[in-house]
Each structure stands twice: as structure tokens, then as C-alpha cells.
């Protein structure tokens, strides 16, 4: 059964919401009444319920099965967190209510900050960024603000070639020139290469650690020292924080700024593409430049500093967005942290790393493992060398995995290995679940080598849709529904 678009099944004269009649009154719109129809279809409530239930059933989520997405940490989303986020004291408060009526909300943000600072060993938190990339932007702005305050004009940002695409995009967005640092043979960044690139033009190094090959940058301290010695700052991409949460404090490694994806490490739900939250932890050097608003405590309770230049935000870099950040995500993350505690978070990191290494160990004989000489962190990286001669690509393996009941792993990223497959099981899987997944991949590997091509090239066979034509979508983009024109009358 196919599900039509709301524009095909709904009607503008139907509504699923009863609204009180406004009665007679004289509008004061100054002549700006909308004249044209809106063209918005409505559905009665039972119809709407079915439409979205049916759509949902065409989706795959963590609750459906293992979600092995490297770098995107899709872990269990406890419903306790959803329940907490819906408490009226959090969900039903306005950002601009008098501060005296939101003391609990401010206290929660303050407590979240305390936990993040303790876990990272940093000095301050900018809590307003709305997602990871927004956090990167905030962190890089803080770096630029610091250089400006120091009278420095530096225009280069160093980014390893294995970096997430957001890193160079962010640097470029605020006017930096991006210079790439190659990886060495073992998949990590060479301190010597960094040092060689560290001219006085360099404003910052952006580094993901553990890196996108799933390895811990073991020379990170040496790199950080070199960056600092050159008068630059060290920006860390926090996407892979899940491997080291509670195991090491990034502040002790020399990091100046790192965004934290609450929707990865702290399990706020991904929701099909957000909302996220990307608080940024800042070192002592960058702390003064954190954006407004800030929360400060005084005798009378907690206070919000909402304007640049006010006490508490004298050197603030500015404002990242309206209001005070992603409160709903803060509550969920706080619930997750309280639930785990210090012991549980450390255990979670260890289980995530253990599970990734277990997958690598169990698949290493049938798939090819680059950089296998070092222990993996929370991700297992494979390349496509093992597919040579099969006529199949990484994409084919990914799509065939759908037929086995799994979401595909991350593919073709990082760019530094050929045909990458990056698998992150997270700490949310039982051994039985890991073994099933390993079994499925082994089975696919044998099938690939045995030449069962149709199983792969035609995959997925058992999904709501077969492979979709992305080229067609991009060539002549259809980005919205358009009312079909009535066919011209046939000539009589």
C-alpha cells in the first residue's frame, strides 16, 4: 500500500483541529489581510494519525536494530529522557520569562555545564550552539575573537585530510583559508607535518580525536604543544567523544575548544536529522570570549547575562542565536548523565571501544583492515581492498546490509582510505546482537567473494524502496509538490 502526499489525500476544507470561534470583531491588520488561498490541505485527526504512522513504518531507527554508523554514534535513546524533557517546568517555560520564574531551568544549565567541564577538564562552556557544526562555528569564532583581542591577524586553519566536512566548511565560513595536513601511514597525524605547517599565519589546528579512522591520536600532546608554541589554538572536533568519555579529559591534552554533540555522546535522539545541541567547552585562554548569554550566580540566585559587554560577558564574541540554547536537549543529556554517573560513563566508553575492537577482530579475516596495527577506539574501519575482483563496491555492501535487517555503516568516509566502511556499534549492543551483526557481514563477505552479484547489485530487495535515482533528483530537482494542471480538453 502506497501512502500519498498530504496534498493528494488532504483537502483545504477539512481540519483536524477544533478552534473556538473568534466571534465578531474589527480586525486591525491595517489592510494587510491575506487575499489568496493558502493551498494547505487538512486531514481529520484519524486520517492524520494514519498518514504519519504509515510514513514512520517506512523508516529504520535505533529501536529497529543495530545502527552501525561510524562517527555518528547512534546509541540507545532512553525514554526516561523524553519524559523528563516534557516536565512542564522545562517544556512549558518561555525563554524571556522573568529570570526569577526560571531558576530551575538556569540551575539545570549550570549543572550540565559543571558536568561537561569536569568530564573535559576545561574552563568554560558556551551552551547556546544548536548543533555540532554550530558549535564548531562558535569555537572557531572564539579563536578568531582571541586573535583579534591579541591584535593578531592570522588567516590559515590547518585541517587533517581525514577531517569531517564541517571542519573546513566552518573555517571557510568565517574567512579562514584551509590547509590540509596529510595522514601518515598508520592513520594518524604526524606531529612533524603539523610543525612544518605552523607558520605565524596559522590561527588554529582543527583535529578530531579519536580521529575518523577510529584511532586515538597518540601524539596529541606533542601536537598541542607545537600549536600553542606557534601562537595558534587547538580546536578539537568532539564528534568522537563517545570513545573517551570519562577515560581522559581533553583539557589535559591541550585542547582549547571542543564542541560536544549532545545527540551523539549524550544520547539525545537524532530524530531523523536533529534537533541536536553543540555546547562548546573552552580553555582558560578562550573562556572570556564565550558568546552571550551566560549564567552567573549572585546572592539572589542565578542571573542571565544576555548582552555583550555586561559584567560577566565583557569580551563576549557576540550571540550565536536567539535565546539560550537547546534546553530540551540539555534536559535529556542531563538525565543521561545522571543515570550513568561517573562510573557508568566510563563503562559506556569502555564497552563502546571493546565492541568496536571485537567487531574488527571478528571480521578482520574476511574484510580488509587499514591501520590494523593499532587498537581501534569506538569505531572499526575497513576499506574495499577485500572487494577487489568481485565487481562490487562499498555501496553494494552497504545496500545489501539493508536486506539483512540493518542500517548500513558509514561509507566512503573517511576519505583517506579507499571505499571506507566505518562501523560504530556503540555501547548499546549486547554480545548476542554483535554476533548476529558479525554473522550477517561475514555471510555477505562470503557471498561477495562467491560471486553472488545480484544479491548486491539489486539490493536492497526487502526495503520500502529499491535503490533510488539520486542523479535524476539532482539534475532536475523537484523540491515540492505542485498541483497537477488539468489536462487540456480533447478536441471535439
Amino acid at each position, binding site marked *: 500500500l502506497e501512502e500519498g*502526499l498530504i496534498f493528494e489525500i488532504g483537502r483545504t476544507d477539512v481540519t483536524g483541529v477544533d478552534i473556538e470561534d473568534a466571534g465578531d470583531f474589527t480586525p486591525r491588520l491595517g489592510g494587510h489581510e491575506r487575499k489568496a488561498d493558502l493551498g494547505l490541505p487538512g486531514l481529520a485527526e484519524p486520517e492524520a494519525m494514519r498518514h504519519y504512522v504509515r510514513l514512520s513504518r517506512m523508516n529504520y531507527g535505533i529501536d529497529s536494530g543495530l545502527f552501525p554508523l561510524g562517527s555518528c554514534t547512534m546509541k540507545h535513546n532512553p525514554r526516561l529522557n523524553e519524559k523528563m524533557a516534557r516536565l512542564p517546568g522545562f517544556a512549558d517555560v518561555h525563554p524571556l520569562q522573568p529570570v526569577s520564574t526560571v531558576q530551575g531551568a538556569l540551575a539545570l544549565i549550570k549543572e550540565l555545564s559543571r558536568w561537561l567541564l569536569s568530564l573535559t577538564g576545561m574552563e568554560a562552556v558556551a551552551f547556546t550552539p544548536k548543533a555540532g557544526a554550530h558549535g564548531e562555528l562558535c569555537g572557531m569564532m572564539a579563536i578568531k575573537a582571541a586573535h583579534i583581542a591579541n591584535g593578531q591577524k592570522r588567516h590559515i586553519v590547518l585541517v587533517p585530510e581525514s577531517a569531517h566536512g564541517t571542519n573546513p566548511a566552518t573555517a571557510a565560513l568565517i574567512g579562514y583559508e584551509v590547509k590540509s595536513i596529510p595522514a601518515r601511514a598508520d592513520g594518524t597525524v604526524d606531529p612533524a607535518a603539523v610543525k612544518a605547517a605552523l607558520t605565524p599565519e596559522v590561527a588554529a589546528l582543527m583535529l578530531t580525536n579519536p580521529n575518523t579512522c577510529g584511532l586515538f591520536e597518540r601524539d596529541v600532546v606533542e601536537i598541542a604543544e607545537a600549536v600553542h608554541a606557534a601562537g595558534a589554538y587547538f580546536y578539537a572536533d568532539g564528534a568522537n567523544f563517545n570513545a573517551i568519555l570519562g577515560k581522559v579529559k581533553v583539557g589535559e591534552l591541550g585542547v582549547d575548544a571542543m564542541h560536544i554533540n549532545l545527540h551523539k555522546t549524550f544520547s539525545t535522539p537524532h530524530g*531523523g536529522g536533529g534537533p541536536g545541541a553543540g555546547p562548546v567547552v573552552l580553555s582558560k585562554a578562550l573562556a572570556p570570549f564565550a558568546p552571550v548569554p551566560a549564567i552567573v550566580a549572585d546572592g539572589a540566585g542565578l542571573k542571565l547575562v544576555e548582552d555583550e559587554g555586561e559584567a560577566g560577558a565583557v569580551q563576549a564574541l557576540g550571540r550565536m542565536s*536567539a535565546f539560550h540554547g537547546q534546553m530540551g536537549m540539555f534536559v535529556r543529556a542531563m538525565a543521561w548523565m545522571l543515570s550513568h554517573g561517573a562510573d557508568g560513563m566510563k563503562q559506556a566508553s569502555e564497552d563502546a571501544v571493546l565492541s568496536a575492537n571485537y567487531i574488527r577482530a571478528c571480521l578482520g579475516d574476511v574484510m580488509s583492515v587499514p591501520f590494523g596495527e593499532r587498537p581501534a577506539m569506538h569505531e572499526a574501519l575497513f576499506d574495499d581492498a577485500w572487494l577487489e575482483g568481485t565487481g562490487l563496491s562499498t555501496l553494494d555492501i552497504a545496500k545489501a546490509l539493508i536486506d539483512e535487517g540493518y542500517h548500513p555503516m558509514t561509507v566512503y568516509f573517511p576519505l583517506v582510505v579507499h571505499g571506507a566502511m566505518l562501523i560504530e556499534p556503540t555501547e548499546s549492543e549486547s554480545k548476542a546482537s554483535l554476533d548476529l551483526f558479525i554473522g550477517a557481514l561475514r555471510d555477505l563477505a562470503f557471498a561477495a567473494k562467491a560471486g553472488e552479484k545480484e544479491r548486491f547489485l539489486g539490493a536492497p530487495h526487502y526495503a520500502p524502496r529499491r535503490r533510488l535515482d*539520486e542523479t535524476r533528483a539532482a539534475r532536475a530537482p523537484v523540491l515540492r509538490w505542485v498541483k497537477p494542471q488539468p489536462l487540456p480538453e480533447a478536441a471535439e
Partner: protein
Amino acid sequence: MRYLPLTPEDRTEMLARIGAPSVDALFADIPAAKLDPALADLPAHKTELSVERTLGALSAQNVPAGSVPFFVGAGAYRHHVPATVDHLIQRSEFLTSYTPYQPEIAQGTLQYLFEFQTQVGELTGMEVANASMYDGSTAAAEAVLMAHRVTKRRKAVVAGNVHPHYRETIATLSLYADDAVVALSPVPQGGEDILSAIDGETSCVVVQSPDVFGNIVDLKPIAEKAHAAGALLIAVFTEVVSLGLIEPPGAQGADIVVGEGQSIGNPLTFGGPYVGLFATRQKYVRQMPGRLAGETVDASGKRGFVLTLSTREQHIRREKATSNICTNSGLCALAFTIHLTLLGETGLRKLARLNHANACKLADKLAAVPGVQVLNSAFFNEFTLRVPGKAVDVIEKLAAKGVLGGVPYARLAPKAGLDDLILVAATEINTDEDRAAYAAALKEVLA
């Protein structure tokens, strides 16, 4: 720990399979001196009951909007959201799904995004919309960058009556992107002169309507002047429900329309997460930031949807991307589209009309309080009061009487020298009793 399925025996077996002597061996690349730092300031794991108590106690320290007569707006609005909406967005397959990079098993997400894009297009009167931004303010800042790309100019003119947080968000991004911003001064009673700020270097003019003071702005003359100067008009709104009753920006010549979508489907939640709406003309689509869902067919010829035009995006284009945005507001967009589908044209029009009616009633009620003046002649569901004395104090005193009466403009812009203004919002949630309570409390406070 209830969330961790591995048992001690599992861990032992897995280590044996890996061939590692201990879990620590897997962390060998971390400098030993830095490994396993003390976290003595953080407690151990807690039961679900205990977490509920801790967070419940914090929640109880706040005054929920629903518990008092409530008139706070200024960029976030309390509307009634049908229970169906929250139920549906919590379905596992929506809540726990990923960005739809694998379209074969993400048609649910992709179809609703396609529907969302169409709805936003219809609402704003524009040709195309993206699959959401973080919120209205960041959407506005991104719109400015987009206008720079389109016009190849780098100077934005921002009207004085744009929400101060939006102004600051634009100013901050522009500052670090080395772009110029001409920021005009606020004119609370409306009628500000924007036209004269537009010149041949202007990339775009950013105008909000209804503006932060509640005034409905005629965009047509601004669009004409901007277009004549080779600049784009960026129209901003913070109350999307207004589009059910007033002329859409698209019909007035706007080139980019951005705004906050929170009002439909999403709770207040102390400011976030919200959902930014972003719409523009077809010809600019490749300069647009953010995700786009597009229609296509699958290998067996069935209609399906995919993320498209991703060559604009950071994960493909890296430093040449149109934006660094990656995760956006998928689930909030879902809430928006479900609520709007429930409303439909008929419901949205009725809702908008009721909002306006309640605002008119409230304005009359408050204008009758001695010493109080309503500044606006034309407004939708929000207007500005001039009160004797400091607005901040009036609002605090009202709160002490159990009325959340609005936002002092000075809280948003302390340096503007407009300390006697209160922004007051009315929606369908307000009752006659609420309005009477407000008027009575205000009278007492000002007495």
C-alpha cells in the same frame, strides 16, 4: 547499569577474541598519565526514580506558562499543540532514526520533509523551501550570507525593528565572516525609513513583519527599492501563525523568507529546540543553505524521495559549501508539519483569526488601564505597551502577582534607551479571565 547490555562474562570473552589482555590495552594510545582521570566531583549512576526526583525538583523551581495568565512572546509563542503531534514524533521510527542518507529505509522522513518544504512554500508564498534550519535567528543570519553569494556584495542593511536577538545573530556571524552590516535604529510605533539606507553596495535588506514591536510592515516598497538597487529583500517573521491571516512575504516581493516555526507544533522549552523556516525563489536554490528533499523514482519505477543537491553541502563540498549546517531540526520540522496538516487551511485561518481577536481584546483592555498606551495601529497577535516607569520593574511586579505580562524591550536591547516598552503577546490560550487578571494586576502595579 540498565542501559549497558554487556555482562562481565561477555567482556571477558570479547577481550579473549580480540586477544587483548585487558580493556586498558585498548586504550594504550592514550598517554598513561592522562588515562582514567579522577571524576570525584561527579556522582555514581542513579536509578530512574532518583533521576526523576532530581530533575523533577529542578522543574518545580520554574513557573510553567500554563499555570498562570501568560502573555510572553517576542519570538516564541505559547500555542496549544494537539496531543497527536507529540505522540507521533515520539514513534521510534521517527525519534530514533538518522539523517536520511539511506533513502531506501528512510522514506518516512524524506516524504514528510518534502511535504514540509511544500507547506513552507505555500505559507510564505515562495517557490522553494529547505528542510529546516536551527531556528529563526540562525536562518536569518544564513539568509544574509546567501544574499551575499547571490549578489556578490557583502553589505547587509538590517531594519531597526528586527528582533534584537536576530540582529545580534546576524551581526555576530557577519563580523567574523568579515561582512558589513548597516544596523538601523528601532522605531517602536512603526513606519521606520528603510528605503534611504539602500544603496548600490547593498546586498540585502532584512525586514521583519510583524516586526518586534508587533507592527505589520508593508514590504512592497522596500522590495521595489531593493530590487532597483540590485539587492535582495530578506523578510523575517517570528510568529508563523500570522501567515494564516496576513499577506505572505512572497506576494510582496521578498527574495528570501526566513522565520521561526516554533509556534506550530513545538513547545516553548525555554528557547529551544525550535525550527527555522527558510524559503526562496527557484532561481536561487543552488545558493541555499541546508538540506533539501527531492522527488525521484526507485529502481522499480516507484516514486520516492532523496536528499538532493548535496553538492552544495559541507560533507561533499567541504570548504566550498553554502553553509556548514549538518544536523538541523528534523523532529521539530516533523512536529510542525503534523500540526499544520491537522490544521489545514481552514484550521490555520481560524487559529490566526482567534489570535488576532484575542490580541485586539487584550489591547483594548490594557489601553484602558490609566497611564498605559498601546503604540500600534496595525498588529497581528502582539503589540507594544508604553508604561510609566521602567518596564522591567513592571514585569517583575506583575510576575510577583502571578501574571507573566510580556517582555520588556529593554531586556532584549538594554542599550536602546527604550526602557518603558513592554512587548505583549496574545494567543488562543488566553481566556477572558486571563485578560481581566492582567488588566487588574497592571492597574495595581501602576497605582
